């Protein structure tokens, strides 16, 4: 199969299969998870067909015209980097959805669950293979939306809804949109949305780096990446996202979606790296987040919360490494970062699935209530130990290797910058490692070692069934495999991925034992300090709790809640003020606006046309009719009883018919009189059934206000008509010419009004009949519905 076709299929297959989920669910019932897992497997195989040529150092590009007017194509760009993330997305999805078969209760809305996950998987794969920024942005936002749907999966839990909203506001609202502006800026500099065109052209990159908009473009795009990967101040959404079902947390919020930000950073690495701005922004944000999140992880009592903070911290490692850059060597940490990206996905997904198992069996995720489960859940214990030790960076697991590479690149970066950074950067890296070590140990110690807390735990706890255990074990196996035989992942996927970022062939040499290097000493220091820190673990956690209680204002969440809460409150107050309920409060602004928008321009534009020629001559019988109209209208308004008021208004209607005669409109006069008769009958029929009066207490203030409004409206009407009748407004040519000229000629009709209605504009009359018909239907149904209620 052609490789580009396979990749395009891999993008759309999950979407198509997601749409089919509700139908397939009718057949598969609660086993629908296997169908979803199979879809992921299929996608994985499709992506794998592209792998050989990527490993051989090629890239796959393909595009079709999509929006030629703005220069946007639908294009795919496959290189090692996009392949790596796509493998993660589809590969881990296989395990996650197999695992979900057992994890998700059969009573849940399984169709929605798998539909969302498949949609997410498709969006993620679509995003990494996007060849231009517009397409990337669309798929990027799709991942945010599917993540929103999955975090809020348990709609009845307010915490879920809060977490879902928070993730959407921060990652999509604050991040995605800003990133989009960044893309537009990039386009304004380069004149193209196409990513391969930009990154493969050194002269274009030079132009960008020398451009005055360079820094602001970088900042905007980086904000999108940071928000997605929960870096810097945006970290606050990830802990709340843990309200999602645990397989979702494992998949989206540790292994794949949060990697999208890192993917973007890696993708634009060739464009922006090698500059001070890149180093300060990316590496700086990464370092601060790494230490901050690692520190905050210590006080978490919910294991998922702990894993969320550790995810933030681990992502920050990767961010930091991508940030390491110098003029001569723009990608010091790229290899290490990419390797850690893969390793983190494996060990963190293992840990999340392990937590899911523990929560499923022990019915709690609170680390204070757990403990001593090693005998009851030996297999889970082994898996957890592998995952946690890999995160802590203990040999021979894969985390050890990438952490060594992290230290190595930190030392290189420090040496490149010179004193005092020669010391500071490695020290910060070690501090991050120490914190990671401490909370990794806590996971093992808190759940499996120590005393069993019989008060809080069920009597019988055991290892889960194979359906949940096997995917977790498979991931743990990868952790060991990548650690012991690092050349497998490195040769197969890391080297092509790094080559995709650095745009150069690379050859990495990763070995478990690589001599007595500075980074090995740093690892030893990390372990020693980590064990020391662990002895003080509870003290630090307690200190953090006390600090939080004493200074509630020193927290980003506090400000987030304040801003969002105030926005909601003020929006409610604002609309409450304008949407008060009674219709008259809506009518008044509409009238006033109409008056303003008509009266003011008319007066301003045509002041000099005034005064006009007015016709004061009037036959006395006309004057009498006009006076009677005013009197009947007034009576209809002021008579309190309905019947006299209705008589007055229908009298007015007949008088209007007479006015039509004065205006030489005989057809109108007849129609008006007939219709008025019918209206009067309906009026009388209705008011016979309701009370004969309604006393509305009109206060003086309201009376004054309403009269003022009415007088204003009346004067506006008067002025408009006055001007209109003087021929102020330049007209279009009237179509009436045509009707009058052709009436007899074409239709043989002498009454032009009739001819227009039934001949020239007969479709309008059809519409009119339709209105009558609908009104009649409405009346019929309103009366008919009476019987059902009583």
């Amino acid at each position, binding site marked *: 199969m052609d490789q580009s076709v396979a990749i395009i299929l891999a993008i759309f297959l999950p979407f198509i299969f997601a749409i089919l989920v509700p139908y397939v669910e009718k057949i598969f019932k609660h086993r629908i998870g296997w169908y979803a897992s199979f879809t992921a497997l299929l996608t994985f195989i499709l992506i794998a067909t592209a792998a050989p040529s990527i490993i051989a150092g090629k890239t796959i590009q393909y595009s079709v015209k999509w929006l030629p007017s703005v220069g946007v194509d639908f294009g795919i760009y496959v290189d090692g980097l996009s392949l790596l993330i796509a493998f993660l997305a589809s590969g881990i999805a296989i395990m996650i959805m197999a695992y979900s078969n057992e994890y998700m209760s059969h009573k849940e809305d399984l169709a929605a669950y798998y539909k969302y996950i498949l949609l997410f998987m498709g969006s993620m794969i679509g995003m990494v293979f996007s060849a231009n920024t517009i397409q990337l942005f669309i798929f990027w936002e799709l991942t945010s939306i599917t993540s929103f749907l999955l975090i809020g999966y348990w709609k009845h839990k307010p915490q879920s809804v809060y977490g879902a909203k928070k993730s959407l506001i921060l990652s999509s609202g604050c991040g995605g949109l800003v990133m989009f502006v960044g893309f537009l800026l990039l386009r304004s500099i380069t004149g193209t949305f196409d990513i391969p065109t930009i990154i493969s052209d050194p002269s274009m990159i030079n132009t960008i780096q020398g451009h005055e908009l360079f820094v602001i473009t970088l900042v905007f795009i980086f904000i999108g990446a940071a928000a997605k990967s929960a870096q810097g101040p945006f970290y606050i959404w990830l802990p709340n996202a843990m309200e999602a079902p645990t397989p979702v947390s494992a998949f989206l919020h540790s292994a794949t979606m949060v990697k999208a930000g890192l993917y973007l950073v890696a993708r634009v690495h060739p464009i922006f790296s090698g500059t001070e701005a890149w180093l300060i922004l990316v590496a700086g944000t990464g370092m601060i987040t790494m230490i901050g999140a690692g520190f905050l992880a210590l006080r978490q009592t919910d294991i998922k919360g702990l894993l969320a903070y550790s995810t933030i911290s681990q992502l920050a490692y990767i961010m930091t490494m991508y940030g390491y850059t110098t003029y001569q060597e723009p990608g010091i940490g790229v290899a290490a970062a990419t390797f850690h990206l893969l390793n983190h996905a494996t060990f963190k997904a293992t840990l999340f699935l392990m937590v899911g198992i523990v929560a499923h069996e022990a019915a709690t995720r609170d680390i204070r209530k757990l403990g001593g489960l090693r005998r009851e859940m030996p297999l889970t214990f082994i898996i957890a130990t592998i995952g946690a030790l890999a995160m802590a960076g203990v040999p021979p697991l894969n985390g050890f290797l990438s952490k060594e590479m992290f230290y190595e690149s930190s030392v290189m970066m420090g040496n490149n910058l010179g004193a005092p950074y020669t010391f500071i950067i490695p020290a910060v890296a070690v501090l991050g490692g120490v914190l990671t070590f401490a909370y990794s140990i806590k996971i093992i110690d808190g759940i499996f070692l120590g005393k069993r807390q019989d008060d809080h735990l069920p009597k019988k706890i055991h290892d889960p069934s194979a359906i949940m255990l096997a995917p977790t074990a498979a991931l743990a196996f990868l952790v060991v495999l990548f650690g012991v035989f690092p050349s497998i992942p490195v040769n197969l996927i890391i080297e092509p991925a790094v080559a995709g970022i650095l745009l150069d062939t690379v050859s990495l040499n990763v070995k478990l034992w690589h001599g007595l290097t500075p980074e090995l000493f740093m690892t030893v220091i990390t372990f020693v300090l980590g064990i020391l820190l662990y002895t003080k673990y509870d003290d630090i956690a307690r200190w953090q709790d006390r600090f939080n209680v004493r200074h509630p204002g020193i927290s980003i969440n506090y400000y987030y809640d304040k801003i969002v809460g105030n926005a909601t409150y003020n929006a409610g107050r604002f609309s409450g003020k304008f949407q008060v309920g009674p219709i008259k409060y809506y009518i008044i602004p509409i009238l006033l606006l109409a008056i303003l928008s008509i009266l003011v321009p008319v007066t301003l534009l045509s002041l000099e046309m005034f005064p006009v020629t007015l016709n004061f001559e*009037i036959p006395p019988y006309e004057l009498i009719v006009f006076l009677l109209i005013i009197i009947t209208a007034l009576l209809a308004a002021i008579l309190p009883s309905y019947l006299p008021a209705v008589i007055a208004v229908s009298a007015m209607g007949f008088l209007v018919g007479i006015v039509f005669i004065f205006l030489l409109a005989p057809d109108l006069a007849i129609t008006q009189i007939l219709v008025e008769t019918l209206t009067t009958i309906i009026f009388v029929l209705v008011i016979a059934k309701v009370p004969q009066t309604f006393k509305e207490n009109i206060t003086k203030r309201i009376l004054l206000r309403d009269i003022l409004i009415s007088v204003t409206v009346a004067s506006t009407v008067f002025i408009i008509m006055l001007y209109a009748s003087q021929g102020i407004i330049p007209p279009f040519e009237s179509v009436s010419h045509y009707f009058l000229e052709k009436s007899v000629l074409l239709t043989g009709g002498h009454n032009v009004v009739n001819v227009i209605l039934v001949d020239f504009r007969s479709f309008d009359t059809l519409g009119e009949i339709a209105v009558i018909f609908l009104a009649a239907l409405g009346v019929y149904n309103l009366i008919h519905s009476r019987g059902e209620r009583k």
Partner: protein
Amino acid sequence: MNIFLLLTISIAFGIGTFLILRRDIIKMIIGIVILCHSVHMMIVAMGAFDGIKAPIIEGSPDKGSGIIFQDSLSDGILAPVVPHTTEVLHMDPLVQALVLTAIVINLAITAFLLILAYRIYEEYGTMDADELRRLRG
């Protein structure tokens, strides 16, 4: 245009406006009816000028009918509707056709509103729009 007709239309419009601001549903409907009447008169009056005929053509087509609208204002600005001119023979038929449709539609709307008011009274026992709102909560 005749100033008295103009005044009548404006006053009726004002009274209609006053009525749709009421809380009483029946009065609101009466207000809508009055508003419709004045709008109809307004539109027809726009096509009406002194000394012209109803848009009914007499005789054969080749005699008398034909060109009817001619600008007679010295400043060259055309009126949106038929201005005073010696050659005018007919009222503007289009506005009349429009209003004829409007009158009929107005009937449909009035009937619907009235039945709605009647059903509201049956369901909630009130004709007060504010009270209705309270009942709905």
